[in-house]
Protein backbone atom coordinates (compact mmCIF):
# COMPACT_ATOMS: atom_id res chain seq x y z
CA UNK A 1 0.00 0.00 0.00
CA UNK A 2 1.50 3.28 -1.06
CA UNK A 3 -0.46 5.69 1.11
CA UNK A 4 -0.12 6.17 4.83
CA UNK A 5 -1.65 8.68 7.16
CA UNK A 6 1.20 10.89 8.40
CA UNK A 7 2.12 10.78 12.08
CA UNK A 8 3.83 13.90 13.39
CA UNK A 9 5.92 14.21 16.49
CA UNK A 10 5.51 17.18 18.80
CA UNK A 11 7.90 16.73 21.70
CA UNK A 12 6.51 13.96 23.86
CA UNK A 13 3.35 13.78 21.85
CA UNK A 14 2.26 12.26 18.57
CA UNK A 15 -0.13 14.11 16.30
CA UNK A 16 -2.33 12.53 13.66
CA UNK A 17 -4.69 14.43 11.39
CA UNK A 18 -7.00 12.20 9.36
CA UNK A 19 -7.77 14.03 6.14
CA UNK A 20 -9.10 11.24 3.95
CA UNK A 21 -12.07 8.91 3.83
CA UNK A 22 -10.21 5.80 4.97
CA UNK A 23 -10.80 2.34 3.67
CA UNK A 24 -10.50 -0.36 6.31
CA UNK A 25 -6.91 -1.39 5.55
CA UNK A 26 -5.73 2.19 5.81
CA UNK A 27 -7.40 2.52 9.20
CA UNK A 28 -5.79 -0.68 10.47
CA UNK A 29 -2.46 0.48 9.09
CA UNK A 30 -2.77 3.70 11.09
CA UNK A 31 -3.62 1.75 14.20
CA UNK A 32 -0.51 -0.44 13.83
CA UNK A 33 1.91 2.31 12.91
CA UNK A 34 0.69 4.59 15.68
CA UNK A 35 1.19 1.90 18.28
CA UNK A 36 4.67 1.16 16.96
CA UNK A 37 5.51 4.85 17.01
CA UNK A 38 4.41 5.20 20.63
CA UNK A 39 6.80 2.41 21.55
CA UNK A 40 9.56 3.80 19.38
CA UNK A 41 9.38 7.36 20.74
CA UNK A 42 8.19 6.70 24.27
CA UNK A 43 5.47 9.28 23.63
CA UNK A 44 3.23 10.02 26.57
CA UNK A 45 0.32 11.36 24.54
CA UNK A 46 -1.46 10.86 21.22
CA UNK A 47 -3.73 13.47 19.65
CA UNK A 48 -5.98 12.41 16.78
CA UNK A 49 -7.65 15.17 14.80
CA UNK A 50 -10.84 14.02 13.08
CA UNK A 51 -12.15 17.47 12.16
CA UNK A 52 -11.95 16.59 8.48
CA UNK A 53 -14.09 13.47 8.82
CA UNK A 54 -17.72 13.90 7.84
CA UNK A 55 -18.48 10.29 8.71
CA UNK A 56 -17.31 8.07 11.55
CA UNK A 57 -18.75 4.56 11.37
CA UNK A 58 -18.33 1.66 13.78
CA UNK A 59 -15.08 0.56 12.13
CA UNK A 60 -13.40 3.92 12.64
CA UNK A 61 -14.93 4.13 16.09
CA UNK A 62 -13.40 0.78 16.99
CA UNK A 63 -10.07 1.94 15.55
CA UNK A 64 -10.09 4.99 17.80
CA UNK A 65 -10.97 2.92 20.85
CA UNK A 66 -8.27 0.38 20.01
CA UNK A 67 -5.66 3.09 19.63
CA UNK A 68 -6.63 4.53 23.01
CA UNK A 69 -6.45 1.12 24.62
CA UNK A 70 -3.10 0.21 23.14
CA UNK A 71 -1.66 3.61 23.99
CA UNK A 72 -2.79 3.34 27.58
CA UNK A 73 -1.13 -0.05 27.89
CA UNK A 74 2.02 1.76 26.88
CA UNK A 75 1.36 4.46 29.46
CA UNK A 76 0.32 7.08 26.94
CA UNK A 77 -2.92 9.07 26.85
CA UNK A 78 -5.10 9.58 23.80
CA UNK A 79 -7.31 12.53 22.91
CA UNK A 80 -9.57 12.72 19.86
CA UNK A 81 -10.39 16.25 18.73
CA UNK A 82 -12.63 18.01 16.24
CA UNK A 83 -15.60 15.70 16.00
CA UNK A 84 -18.28 17.37 13.92
CA UNK A 85 -21.80 17.86 15.38
CA UNK A 86 -23.51 15.77 12.67
CA UNK A 87 -21.05 12.94 13.34
CA UNK A 88 -21.58 13.16 17.10
CA UNK A 89 -25.37 13.13 16.72
CA UNK A 90 -25.15 10.10 14.43
CA UNK A 91 -22.83 8.20 16.76
CA UNK A 92 -25.24 8.79 19.64
CA UNK A 93 -28.10 7.47 17.51
CA UNK A 94 -25.95 4.52 16.43
CA UNK A 95 -25.32 3.69 20.06
CA UNK A 96 -21.57 3.92 19.73
CA UNK A 97 -19.90 5.26 22.85
CA UNK A 98 -16.13 5.17 22.11
CA UNK A 99 -14.93 3.70 25.39
CA UNK A 100 -11.61 4.95 26.73
CA UNK A 101 -11.55 7.76 24.20
CA UNK A 102 -11.20 11.21 25.68
CA UNK A 103 -12.31 14.07 23.45
CA UNK A 104 -11.73 17.79 23.09
CA UNK A 105 -13.12 20.42 20.76
CA UNK A 106 -9.89 21.31 18.98
CA UNK A 107 -6.13 20.74 18.90
CA UNK A 108 -5.48 23.53 21.42
CA UNK A 109 -7.84 22.15 24.02
CA UNK A 110 -6.67 18.63 23.27
CA UNK A 111 -3.01 19.50 23.84
CA UNK A 112 -3.94 21.28 27.05
CA UNK A 113 -5.59 18.08 28.29
CA UNK A 114 -2.59 15.97 27.35
CA UNK A 115 -0.12 18.36 28.93
CA UNK A 116 -1.95 18.57 32.23
CA UNK A 117 -2.46 14.81 32.26
CA UNK A 118 -6.16 15.20 32.87
CA UNK A 119 -6.98 12.55 30.32
CA UNK A 120 -6.98 9.75 32.88
CA UNK A 121 -9.62 11.51 34.93
CA UNK A 122 -11.88 12.45 32.04
CA UNK A 123 -11.93 9.44 29.75
CA UNK A 124 -15.16 7.39 29.86
CA UNK A 125 -14.74 3.90 31.28
CA UNK A 126 -13.88 1.11 28.89
Amino acid sequence: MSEHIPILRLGEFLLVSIQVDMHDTLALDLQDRLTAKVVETGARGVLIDISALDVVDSFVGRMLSNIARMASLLDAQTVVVGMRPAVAITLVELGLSLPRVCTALDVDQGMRLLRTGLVEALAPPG
Partner: protein
Amino acid sequence: MVVRKHQVLPVKSEKDVVTVRQEVRRWAVELAFSLVEQTKLVTAASELARNTFQYGGGGEVQFEALENGVRRGLRLVFEDHGPGIPNVALALRDGYTTGGGLGLGLGGAKRLVNDFEIQTAPGEGTRITVARWR
Protein backbone atom coordinates in the same frame (compact mmCIF):
# COMPACT_ATOMS: atom_id res chain seq x y z
CA MET B 1 -44.70 5.94 -5.46
CA VAL B 2 -42.30 6.71 -8.26
CA VAL B 3 -38.66 5.75 -8.67
CA ARG B 4 -37.01 8.83 -10.12
CA LYS B 5 -33.43 7.62 -10.42
CA HIS B 6 -31.74 4.26 -10.21
CA GLN B 7 -28.17 3.01 -9.99
CA VAL B 8 -26.36 -0.18 -9.02
CA LEU B 9 -22.85 -0.38 -7.54
CA PRO B 10 -20.73 -3.43 -6.73
CA VAL B 11 -19.75 -4.05 -3.11
CA LYS B 12 -16.88 -6.47 -3.55
CA SER B 13 -13.91 -4.76 -1.92
CA GLU B 14 -13.12 -2.34 0.83
CA LYS B 15 -12.53 0.35 -1.78
CA ASP B 16 -16.12 -0.25 -2.88
CA VAL B 17 -17.27 0.51 0.66
CA VAL B 18 -15.61 3.91 0.38
CA THR B 19 -17.18 4.47 -3.03
CA VAL B 20 -20.59 3.57 -1.66
CA ARG B 21 -20.15 6.14 1.13
CA GLN B 22 -19.28 8.83 -1.38
CA GLU B 23 -22.14 7.96 -3.71
CA VAL B 24 -24.69 7.90 -0.89
CA ARG B 25 -23.43 11.32 0.16
CA ARG B 26 -23.82 12.59 -3.38
CA TRP B 27 -27.36 11.26 -3.74
CA ALA B 28 -28.38 12.56 -0.31
CA VAL B 29 -27.06 16.02 -1.13
CA GLU B 30 -28.90 16.01 -4.44
CA LEU B 31 -32.14 15.07 -2.68
CA ALA B 32 -31.56 18.00 -0.32
CA PHE B 33 -31.37 16.03 2.92
CA SER B 34 -30.12 18.02 5.92
CA LEU B 35 -26.51 17.53 6.99
CA VAL B 36 -27.48 15.32 9.93
CA GLU B 37 -29.77 13.21 7.75
CA GLN B 38 -27.01 12.85 5.15
CA THR B 39 -24.54 11.72 7.80
CA LYS B 40 -26.98 9.16 9.18
CA LEU B 41 -27.58 7.75 5.68
CA VAL B 42 -23.88 7.57 4.83
CA THR B 43 -23.04 5.97 8.16
CA ALA B 44 -25.80 3.37 7.85
CA ALA B 45 -24.71 2.64 4.28
CA SER B 46 -21.12 2.21 5.42
CA GLU B 47 -22.14 -0.35 8.04
CA LEU B 48 -24.35 -2.29 5.64
CA ALA B 49 -21.87 -2.18 2.77
CA ARG B 50 -19.12 -3.48 5.00
CA ASN B 51 -21.38 -6.33 6.11
CA THR B 52 -22.21 -7.20 2.52
CA PHE B 53 -18.52 -7.31 1.65
CA GLN B 54 -17.07 -8.95 4.75
CA TYR B 55 -19.82 -11.20 5.96
CA GLY B 56 -21.80 -11.72 2.77
CA GLY B 57 -18.83 -12.47 0.57
CA GLY B 58 -19.48 -9.51 -1.69
CA GLY B 59 -22.58 -8.31 -3.48
CA GLU B 60 -24.14 -5.12 -4.73
CA VAL B 61 -26.10 -2.10 -3.63
CA GLN B 62 -29.02 -0.52 -5.47
CA PHE B 63 -29.74 3.19 -5.22
CA GLU B 64 -33.23 4.54 -5.76
CA ALA B 65 -34.46 8.12 -5.53
CA LEU B 66 -38.12 7.92 -4.56
CA GLU B 67 -41.02 10.30 -4.87
CA ASN B 68 -44.23 9.71 -2.93
CA GLY B 69 -46.46 12.67 -3.60
CA VAL B 70 -44.60 15.61 -2.12
CA ARG B 71 -42.13 13.47 -0.17
CA ARG B 72 -38.66 12.65 -1.45
CA GLY B 73 -36.71 9.64 -0.27
CA LEU B 74 -33.56 7.63 -0.83
CA ARG B 75 -33.75 3.85 -0.81
CA LEU B 76 -30.78 1.53 -0.68
CA VAL B 77 -30.89 -2.22 -1.19
CA PHE B 78 -27.88 -4.26 -0.12
CA GLU B 79 -27.81 -7.76 -1.51
CA ASP B 80 -25.39 -10.65 -1.24
CA HIS B 81 -25.43 -14.39 -1.86
CA GLY B 82 -23.48 -15.23 1.24
CA PRO B 83 -24.25 -17.46 4.21
CA GLY B 84 -27.33 -15.54 5.35
CA ILE B 85 -28.02 -14.47 8.93
CA PRO B 86 -29.14 -17.33 11.18
CA ASN B 87 -30.76 -15.33 13.98
CA VAL B 88 -32.11 -12.02 12.78
CA ALA B 89 -33.65 -11.05 16.10
CA LEU B 90 -30.32 -11.47 17.81
CA ALA B 91 -28.51 -9.59 15.07
CA LEU B 92 -30.88 -6.66 15.45
CA ARG B 93 -30.30 -6.54 19.18
CA ASP B 94 -26.58 -6.70 18.66
CA GLY B 95 -24.28 -3.99 19.85
CA TYR B 96 -20.81 -3.12 18.74
CA THR B 97 -18.91 -4.13 21.81
CA THR B 98 -17.98 -7.73 22.44
CA GLY B 99 -21.09 -9.50 23.54
CA GLY B 100 -21.33 -12.50 21.30
CA GLY B 101 -23.21 -12.44 18.06
CA LEU B 102 -21.91 -11.35 14.72
CA GLY B 103 -21.16 -7.78 15.63
CA LEU B 104 -22.98 -6.66 12.51
CA GLY B 105 -24.49 -3.69 14.26
CA LEU B 106 -27.75 -4.01 12.35
CA GLY B 107 -29.68 -2.60 15.26
CA GLY B 108 -27.60 0.56 15.10
CA ALA B 109 -28.01 0.97 11.36
CA LYS B 110 -31.73 0.45 11.78
CA ARG B 111 -31.90 3.41 14.13
CA LEU B 112 -30.36 5.66 11.52
CA VAL B 113 -33.05 5.12 8.89
CA ASN B 114 -36.83 5.45 8.59
CA ASP B 115 -37.57 2.15 6.83
CA PHE B 116 -35.68 -1.07 7.43
CA GLU B 117 -36.42 -4.45 5.92
CA ILE B 118 -34.33 -7.60 5.97
CA GLN B 119 -34.76 -10.81 4.00
CA THR B 120 -32.37 -13.57 4.85
CA ALA B 121 -32.10 -17.28 5.55
CA PRO B 122 -29.14 -19.55 6.25
CA GLY B 123 -27.51 -20.46 2.94
CA GLU B 124 -29.72 -18.10 1.00
CA GLY B 125 -27.92 -14.81 1.16
CA THR B 126 -29.12 -11.54 2.59
CA ARG B 127 -31.12 -8.62 1.26
CA ILE B 128 -31.41 -5.48 3.37
CA THR B 129 -33.55 -2.56 2.25
CA VAL B 130 -33.31 0.80 4.01
CA ALA B 131 -34.86 4.15 3.21
CA ARG B 132 -34.87 7.68 4.57
CA TRP B 133 -37.49 10.27 3.79
CA ARG B 134 -37.54 14.01 3.95
